[in-house]
């Protein structure tokens, strides 16, 4: 960009503001919520999250113990008739190991990993062809039933976007009460190149305001909540 263009606009804005001054009031950041408090409220937050997720057309499974995640995954895959799964790395949980278990069930597993320029199109095509994407959420929001997903080379955003079935693992300790708390948690610094808030399966109401699921993204969203062994 030529700086002159920006300067021209800024100069116009400045003189416009000078002609009629506005309110002045920049505030401080809200304090992030106390982790101890969240710890005590895990059960309450998990049940609120589950309720809200179901209200937007998703499905909540659990909370289950970490050892139960594998069997639950197998039953989801069977129920949805999934023949192939694309998976990336997890956040806390070992997703590649869980995916490997699915192979024993006769499901083809594609492990997405960091790519090179040459392999990008090919990797994307494979993720797009998979029946299901398996991912783990970084955070979740109880009041809206929302998953917060950061993208990283080992955990591409495509996994929760391209396959028609989306399966997401969520640790209950990562559920925050509301949007403000979740944003305070990720914070300006932790913001990766892409952060996506996902509230239910992809949907549209463009035809006579009637809700239809699965327009461009997943048609179904299953979230397995994990309660840690203590």
């Amino acid at each position: 960009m030529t700086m002159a263009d920006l300067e021209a606009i800024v100069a116009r804005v400045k003189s416009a503001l000078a002609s009629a001054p506005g309110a002045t009031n920049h505030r401080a950041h809200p304090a992030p919520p106390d982790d101890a408090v969240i710890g005590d409220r895990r059960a309450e937050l998990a049940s609120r999250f589950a309720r809200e997720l179901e209200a937007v057309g998703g499905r909540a499974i659990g909370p289950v113990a970490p050892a139960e995640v594998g069997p639950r995954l197998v039953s989801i895959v069977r129920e949805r008739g999934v023949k192939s799964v694309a998976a990336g790395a997890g956040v806390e949980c070992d997703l590649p190991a869980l995916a490997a278990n699915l192979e024993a069930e006769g499901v083809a597993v594609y492990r997405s990993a960091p790519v090179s320029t040459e392999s990008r199109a090919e990797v994307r095509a494979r993720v797009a062809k998979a029946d299901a994407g398996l991912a783990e959420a970084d955070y979740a929001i109880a009041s809206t039933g929302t998953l917060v997903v950061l993208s990283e080379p080992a955990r591409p955003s495509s996994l929760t976007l391209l396959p028609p079935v989306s399966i997401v693992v969520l640790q209950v300790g990562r559920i925050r009460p509301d949007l403000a708390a979740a944003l305070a948690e990720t914070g300006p610094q932790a913001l990766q190149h892409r952060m996506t808030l996902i509230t239910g399966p992809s949907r549209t109401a463009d035809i006579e305001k009637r809700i239809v699921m699965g327009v461009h993204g997943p048609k179904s969203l299953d979230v397995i909540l994990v309660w840690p062994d203590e």
Partner: protein
Amino acid sequence: MAASFKAGDFFEASESGAADHELRRKLENASGRHLEHLARTKAEFSPYEDERAESRRIKEDAIGHLDELIVELTRKLEERGCRVFAASTAAEARDYIVGLARKSGAKRIVKGKSMTTEEIGLNPALEAAGMEVIETDLGEYIVQLRREPPSHIITPAIHLSKEDIGRLFHEKLGMTYTAEPERLTAEARARLREAFLGADIGITGVNFAVAETGTLVVVENEGNGRMSSTMPDIFVAVMGIEKVIPRLSDLSHFLEVLGRTATGQKLTTYTNLISGPRREDELDGPREVHVVMLDNGRSAMLADPVMREALYCIRCGACLNVCPVYRHIGGHAYRSPYPGPIGSIVSPNLVGESTSMLPFASTLCGACKEICPVKIDIPRLLLHLRWKESSGANGPRWPRGAAGARAGGRRFARLARYPWVVRMLGRAGAMMLRPFARDGWIRKMPPPFGNWTRLRDFPLPRPKAAPKPREDS
């Protein structure tokens, strides 16, 4: 395709909209359903009023510091690896994007719903340069197939029934006729999925841009904004300069109100926070991110202390759904990408002269002000624009009409000093009108009053009781 807005006679277009009973049925149907969703989510959420007040406050703050915030946002975006282009006019923005598409050898462009790109007339320009442009929001895809502009900023195909869309898909896509929304949506999904994976450039609008972090926020339900901003190698975000907000923590207040007022959702399905291009070994995300920051009349709105408030708008579309005029005539009659109450305010500034009549297309009932999530006093702004339009620097728009009205007013003032004359003339007038009346209503008045009865009946003046309202009115 060239679905652009042509300047035209608003009054003529609104009459044909009003006369279209089928259109009105569809609008009532869709906007009624929207209002039901809305009431439900608001009732469930007690801090709504607090969030609304806070959103308003942040907007006042942000617009009051717009100069600093634009500089901060630009710096942060560039630090994140985005390229920022500041466009003073629609033509500059258009030329930049067309130039970028040419330079990169792009053939296919996918677009998320963006009224700002409608404002700058981007699609016709890209098509003239030989590019294929595909709208990917389902509603936009539908109106693009019909080669017409959107009629609502949130629900572009609100003027169409599922049967209309079924026939359209049958004719244009060769699909077997069906009016089932599920099957129509599945057809669009299959076609657009292919488009996303093969596109060279993705273009979307921006709902909010966070100055503190250099983050672009794109809010949507379908996933097409997410697709457009992750799949193609080049991503172009087009934003008006008023979209900037100071901090990341401000975002939650806006998202809490936007989903609720726009579609009656607590949060829309996808909220994309984009801060720069992908990293080297990353699967998703564009190689290049271009941000076009558009002035195009916004700084002029800022300079007018009354109009400034219109820059607080977060484009939720709720004022369209509650507006009796919009619900009567539909979005196309406004001849602007921004229809409805808010459109009547911003269009004269952003779209231009051809829309200068719009502020007069309102009953000033105030439903828009009541529902606005950032509490914009739309009726006040409409009156302000009417005043500017009729007594502006260039003189009144209708000099003869204005002079005539003033002279008439003066004559009546003189007459009114003699109440008995007024009474007598009133009675004489009523008597003269009697032959034209039937059942107490006059369907057609003689000139020069004919304009009144062109659209509505006139009650026969009576000395005592007014006529009962008719059953069909």
